[in-house]
């Protein structure tokens, strides 16, 4: 196989993982980690210019190129962030050098797994990749080895495994549906073949498959009744992992769901996947919005905010149609950037305050102005206030829904407002008021956080026409 961009985004992280597992020394490995993600990002960007043809295993089209570039970008910035974050953790002794080595290797394995899930043209391969990503993150969540971290990892592991088992069952069912039409063997798992022939599949079997896939991958997305692992995994793991979980892994799982949704949409007899996704999305949104009110742990609160936003995105994709899909894609991109920026901020906040309890923080904008205002800006963005990017995408979701299903739109707006109020209630006590808690020094790198926020701000004010055209194109693909 000749070397192209697709193999690049896979080989680079895999090789880096092997290298990082072998090399000692924090400074060198942390920089190598950044270098590897930079290289991956470059490979991903080259997908815009030259794209290899789809094979039986790998595929690059407009849809997954968007996801790959987003993944590579956030992966890159997070590696820059983890440079300073992990340094601090080493200093305070929360992590020991062997664990740091393990952490870096696992980080690259995670990147590899996510990229593999995105480029996979084979639904079996995609499943394997998502499973690998899950296992990697389980290990990373438990890395601090505190009671809480172990419990969170255990919970994540059990719930994630059940989810992944359900997803496998769904995959098998899709194969069963495809076999009479496409023929036995490998071909019946190749997504590009499946989608062209999906018209002739047994619709009832596809329906059943989708139920399992929705629950299986929906667990990874963090949709409401299946969400339980998410808040704890976010709260107890290292913050860079929280950022990657929220910003990327949830997206990757959603991407898998979207692929199967397209399959169902191509079959006229199958039940429309939309209503199920709409229902789960709305449930997640409203549920998470209410959960924001009683949170005492800052990372757990933003984890719930992630559930809320994944609900919105799932809702938008469930509504379907070019406009709603466009809004969903935009919202997903904006949410990835914003939420990872927030976690960058929260990571440093937790380090300077030496706690994650909201009650022990306060007056952050006074004691650490840059960090505090960065966090405020991030929360303003995530709450969906203008002029930042999430406002635009939420506005699009709401307005396109009002035109088609006003009743659903009412519920949507209700959830959004409840969530907004909840976020600001907490933000108020974190960022403003009398300074509380210890005011440690920061040795933070603010560049990743403000880079993300700047992108979100620019996207909110001005979207380049080329980007809009690109997203519209992808939204059209989603049907």
């Amino acid at each position, binding site marked *: 196989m000749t070397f192209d961009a697709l193999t690049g985004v896979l080989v680079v992280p895999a090789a880096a993982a092997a290298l990082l597992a072998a090399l000692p020394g924090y400074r060198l490995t942390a920089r190598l980690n950044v270098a590897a993600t930079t290289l991956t990002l470059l490979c991903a960007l080259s997908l815009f210019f030259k794209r290899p043809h789809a094979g039986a295993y790998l595929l690059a089209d407009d849809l997954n190129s968007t996801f790959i570039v987003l993944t590579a970008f956030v992966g890159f910035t997070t590696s820059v962030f983890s440079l300073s974050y992990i340094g601090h953790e080493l200093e305070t002794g929360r992590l020991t050098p062997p664990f740091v080595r393990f952490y870096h290797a696992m980080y690259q394995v995670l990147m590899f797994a996510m990229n593999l899930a995105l480029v996979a043209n084979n639904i079996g391969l995609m499943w394997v990749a998502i499973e690998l990503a899950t296992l990697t993150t389980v290990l990373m969540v438990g890395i601090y080895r505190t009671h809480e971290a172990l419990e969170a990892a255990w919970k994540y592991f059990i719930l994630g495994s059940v989810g992944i088992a359900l997803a496998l069952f769904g995959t098998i069912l899709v194969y069963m549906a495809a076999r009479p039409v496409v023929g036995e063997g490998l071909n019946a798992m190749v997504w590009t073949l499946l989608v062209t022939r999906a018209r002739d599949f047994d619709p009832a079997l596809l*329906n059943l498959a989708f139920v399992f896939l929705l629950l299986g991958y929906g667990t990874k997305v963090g949709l409401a009744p299946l969400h339980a692992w998410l808040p704890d995994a976010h709260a107890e793991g290292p913050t860079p992992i929280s950022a990657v979980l929220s910003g990327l892994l949830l997206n990757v799982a959603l991407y898998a769901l979207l692929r199967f949704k397209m399959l169902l949409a191509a079959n006229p007899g199958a039940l429309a996947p939309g209503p199920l996704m709409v229902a789960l999305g709305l449930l997640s949104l409203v549920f998470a919005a*209410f959960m924001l009110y*009683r949170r005492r742990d800052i990372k757990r609160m933003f984890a719930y905010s992630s559930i809320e936003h994944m609900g919105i995105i799932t809702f938008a994709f469930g509504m379907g149609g070019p406009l709603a899909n466009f809004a969903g894609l935009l919202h997903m991109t904006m949410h990835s950037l914003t939420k990872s920026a927030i976690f960058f901020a929260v990571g440093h906040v937790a380090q300077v305050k030496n706690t994650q309890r909201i009650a022990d923080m306060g007056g952050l904008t006074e004691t650490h102005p840059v960090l505090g205002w960065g966090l405020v800006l991030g929360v303003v963005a995530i709450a969906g206030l203008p002029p930042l990017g999430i406002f635009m995408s939420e506005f699009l979701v709401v307005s396109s829904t009002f035109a088609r299903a006003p009743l659903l739109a009412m519920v949507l707006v209700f959830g959004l407002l409840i969530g907004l109020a909840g976020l600001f209630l907490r933000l108020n006590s974190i960022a403003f008021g009398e300074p509380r808690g210890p005011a440690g020094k920061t040795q933070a790198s603010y560049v990743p956080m403000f880079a993300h926020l700047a992108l979100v701000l620019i996207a909110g004010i001005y979207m380049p026409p080329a980007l809009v055209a690109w997203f519209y194109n992808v939204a059209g693909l989603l049907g």
Partner: protein
Amino acid sequence: MPAQIGTQWLSIVPIAASRSSYDGLLVFLFMVISGTLAAFAIHRLASDRLRRAPAWDCGYPDASPATQYTAMSFAQPMRRVFGTVVFHAREHGEMPPPGDTRPAQLEVELSDPIWDLLYAPLVTGVGFAADHLNRLQFLTIRQFLSLVFGALVILLLVLAVWS
């Protein structure tokens, strides 16, 4: 929004440009230009001298805390105007009889209908829902699994009934 497509950036045209339109950016630019123009002209052509002095306050420069303008004082004209109609203002004046050294008291009771009828129920409702849903944070792993299990069974039942 049919007229919105094809208009310039940040311009808002709900129906047609001849009926109503608004371009926030242009107005903002206008304001910035005219403001800086004025500032520039005055500073250049006239004086830009400045002197700090105590506040004049119509000749009462020694501000005492008692005359501090508070939020309550700011709202006073409003309360005066809308008091009886909207706020159901009730005044209780208490004038001690002559010879009594107690200070006179004046109490004003106001009720804010917007708060009482709109926000207060909302706040209680949200608090109630948040408290009750919050229990879902503290379930055991087994109970969370039961949730997943329940969702699966319900969806399968839906499928069995539907198709």
